[in-house]
């Protein structure tokens, strides 16, 4: 459950064990905090984005249950973390996502068509049916290929940030991971390199309380995850992960510092994984459902909606229009994706190397000539 932090300055140095928050549960800006200035239009775009993630998750999770989709991972309850990070960046910055931030991709312009084709691994899948569902990659958006091994993207993001600095560009890297990932060697090594090389990299830890069935207490004995920043000589900030405005504030600060050459920041966003780990998981086998209910009352979209209401930006009509647009787009994407066949079997041998080496050319010939499964495509 979210500890009620006192509103304090977002800028470090601050106590990394204290939650920074701007909006209270009713969507009011807490007294004494300076809220970042988010223009009306952006506020609504953010709302639409949050809504899109929620609707897509609901629909595709159902689709998976119906057996029409091989696998799915939802991020219900964590949507604010996607957009708070995405909002603070400019297009030339890079993101290194984990598997639970579709909003990050949507914000940068990833279409529902690409998204859905990837889930189906069909012949228009941007990654050519090579990866499980939810492992997107969109180079044209500086959205780096998602990988299943937990934590590997962390030093990679640091390397990209170092490369930007070396290349005298002021692009920054933003890397996402769950709190479980902080236990990997990769987290440590990436954070340490970033500290030493003052890499313009922001480490975004979605602390959603669970790593599959493993609770946060079994993951580490430290009080917060943000405090781990001290081990690397960088600031750590703990932020209310269901408070989009607070995340934006923290991120804008971190991005500014990174871009100015002042080094990396670790952001911990305290939130909760309301659904199962993935479509293969049954969380009732290991946790108390009342915990979930308590977090439902803290819904990040509802909090943002209340804020927009206070700003006179929200209306039911607008909401319905967004929902309709998203649903239409999604249904069209789905229809399209389901209508497509698998990638051609020849494509299996592409992209191992820049050019097809002789042994793969032979194996490709062997594969094409040999007996082949009646239905190679199991994408649906």
């Amino acid at each position, binding site marked *: 459950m979210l500890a009620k932090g006192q509103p304090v300055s977002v800028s470090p140095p601050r106590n990394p064990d204290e939650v920074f928050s701007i909006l209270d549960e009713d969507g009011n800006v807490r007294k004494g905090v300076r809220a970042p200035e988010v223009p009306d239009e952006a506020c609504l775009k953010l709302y639409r984005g949050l809504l899109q993630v929620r609707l897509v998750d609901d629909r595709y999770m159902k689709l998976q249950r119906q057996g029409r989709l091989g696998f799915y991972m939802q991020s219900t309850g964590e949507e604010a973390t996607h957009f708070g990070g995405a909002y603070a960046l400019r297009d030339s910055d890079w993101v290194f996502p984990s598997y639970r931030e579709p909003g990050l991709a949507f914000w940068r312009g990833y279409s529902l068509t690409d998204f859905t084709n990837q889930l189906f691994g069909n012949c228009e899948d941007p990654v050519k049916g*090579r990866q*499980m569902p939810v492992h997107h990659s969109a180079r044209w958006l500086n959205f780096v290929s998602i990988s*299943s091994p937990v934590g590997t993207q962390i030093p990679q993001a640091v390397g990209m940030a170092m490369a930007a600095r070396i290349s005298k560009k002021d692009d920054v890297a933003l890397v996402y991971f769950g709190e479980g990932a902080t*236990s990997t060697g990769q987290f440590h090594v990436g954070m340490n390199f970033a500290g030493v090389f003052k890499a313009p990299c922001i480490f975004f830890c979605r602390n959603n309380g669970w790593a599959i069935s493993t609770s946060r207490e079994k993951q580490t004995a430290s009080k917060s995850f943000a405090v781990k920043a001290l081990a690397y000589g960088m600031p750590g900030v703990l932020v209310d992960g269901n408070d989009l405005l607070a995340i934006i504030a923290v991120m804008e600060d971190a991005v500014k510092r990174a871009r100015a050459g002042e080094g990396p920041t670790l952001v911990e966003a305290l939130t909760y994984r309301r659904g199962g780990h993935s479509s293969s998981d049954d969380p009732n*086998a290991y946790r108390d459902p009342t915990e979930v209910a308590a977090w439902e009352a803290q819904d990040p979209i509802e909090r943002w909606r209340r804020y927009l209401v206070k700003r006179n930006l929200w209306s039911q009509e607008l909401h319905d229009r967004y929902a309709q647009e998203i649903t239409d787009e999604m249904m069209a994407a789905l229809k399209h994706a389901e209508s497509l066949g698998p990638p051609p079997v020849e494509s299996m041998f592409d992209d191992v190397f820049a050019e097809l080496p002789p042994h793969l050319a032979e194996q490709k010939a062997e594969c094409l000539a040999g007996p*082949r499964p009646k239905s*190679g*495509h*199991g994408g649906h």
Partner: protein
Amino acid sequence: MPVYNIIQAVNDALRLEMKRDPRVVVLGEDVGKFGGVFRATSGLYDEFGPDRVMDTPLAESGIIGTAIGMALYGLKPVPEIQFADFIYPAYDQIVNELAKFRYRSGGQYPTPVVIRTPYGGGIRGGHYHSQSPEAYFVHTPGLKVVIPSNPYDAKGLLLSAIRGEDPVIFMEPKRVYRAAKGEVPEDDYTIPIGQAKIVREGSQVTLLCYGAMVHTCMEAAEKAAAEGFDPEIIDLRTLLPLDTETVLQSVRKTGRVVIAHEAPRTCGYGAELAAMIAERALLSLEAPIARVTGFDTPFPYTLENEYLPSPDRVAQAIKQTATY
């Protein structure tokens, strides 16, 4: 006798040995209350408590590193790596430490750790939930590598592995985790490590395989048999140490060899089998040794059925080799 699948057989072996030997402990990601993502440790936490069934932080090098330390102190750890694809963060602990501890200490410090891990494709897992990294471990002196294909062997081999004094990589074919069912005695029995098993007698071609591929090969053999071919199938069960004798005897009889595995071809375990046979039974060979394997690409998602050796591909190799 109860009919178990492989998961149940593994679970049964773990429970039996944990009851028998208080030194046996289990650790890994989600192996505790949840019982593991494949449920192989189901119920053990309730029965043996958190000291002997440990949910760990998300760090494979920590799982294996601490398991080594436990073994040094006298425990018998049986860590689980959730998917073989995620074993690489622990690679240094496995190949530089676990495999060499006894040797480098002049025999002072054995480290009998049995690493259980599901491996292989066929579950629509893409290249991060489908890999078959057995050759990496076979090439590492100091490790035994065991791969059962059915529940009976799984229980008997796992008990042998835990009771042994050496580190073992125990790879479980997740594709047939539930599909491969069979009678499994409730009581204690072991199957010696290092003994292959002829699962189909035949005269014409020797088919070498292990894990899930045994089932593919059996199916292939049926297809080929329907056309009048007569393959012999050997389930290797232990990849290291290999039961060279059983393999060579069969090869001397048939003069023809087909090897099947899911892992990529180049430098896979099939290479060692073929090399060994070409060294020791060259004059018996009446046809080139055929390897039916995964291709030398990362494991794909959509096209996994094209990638995996199918009964048809194996059957074709049987026929081509037999008629060479």
